[in-house]
């Protein structure tokens, strides 16, 4: 059970949060101009790596804000959390 530092509310138990998949996948502004392949790339393709990964989380049972997290999937260590629209503090 993680302890997650919500960028708005502070440290909370993982049970207050829900995970929302890979971060920094921007919805195309003009979907109609994309080919099937390009659209499928946006829709389906996710990295799912072992190691440091950028993820979206929602403080669902708290402030209901979405935010980003840098997490190492190999040891569950959370390296950073940051607000939507902010640049990742770690590369």
């Amino acid at each position, binding site marked *: 059970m993680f302890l997650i530092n919500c960028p*708005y*509310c*502070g*440290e*909370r*138990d993982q*049970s*207050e949060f829900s995970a929302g998949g890979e971060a920094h996948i921007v919805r195309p502004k003009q979907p109609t101009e994309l080919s099937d392949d390009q659209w499928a790339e946006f829709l389906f393709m996710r990295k799912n790596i072992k190691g440091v990964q950028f993820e979206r989380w929602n403080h669902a*049972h*708290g*402030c*209901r*804000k979405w935010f980003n997290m840098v997490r190492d999937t190999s040891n569950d260590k959370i390296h950073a959390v940051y607000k939507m629209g902010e640049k990742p503090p770690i590369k």
Partner: protein
Amino acid sequence: MLNFNSPIMDTKEYSEIKISEVEPILKINLRGKSRDFITKIGKELSIIPPTESNTSSGNENLNILWLGPDEWLLYSNNKIDLNNINILENKLFNEISKAKIGSVTNVSDHWIMINLKGKKVFELLASGCPFNFNEFKKTKGSVTQTLLNHIDVIIHNKNINDLNLFVRRSFSNHLWSWIKDSSRFI
């Protein structure tokens, strides 16, 4: 006349814990992002919505709880006159929502307020709530949204060992039963 029904209408006392439903209480959800919004609320209510997380502001009649960076819960300290329930809502709606600087939504019946009092209230909460109350209980006015027995709640630290807990009406019976059950073992 239509009958007013609140879901619990009960008070229970255990050793060092007293629980009671307090209704009708006026509750209004406020949302807004701009400085204008904050100023306007401040002007209308003479209370500034807190911008610091997990805190509240208030006066004799009203409290404003921080729920998120653009969301607050306004609630009345005392039971309200059912005939005048819409006055404040209408006023705020006209000044905020119609002026396009935020939203004002009456949630008086969305939430049910339960007052928890007594030396052992935090032990009661610890039997179903993952939130760390160690700092919270020391700070009058602190606010948290969390889970209690898997149910979303808002908890406002009114005074020493005196809490107001808000739970969605449809969950309130279940949570009330759970609180009663758990209080037996504290």
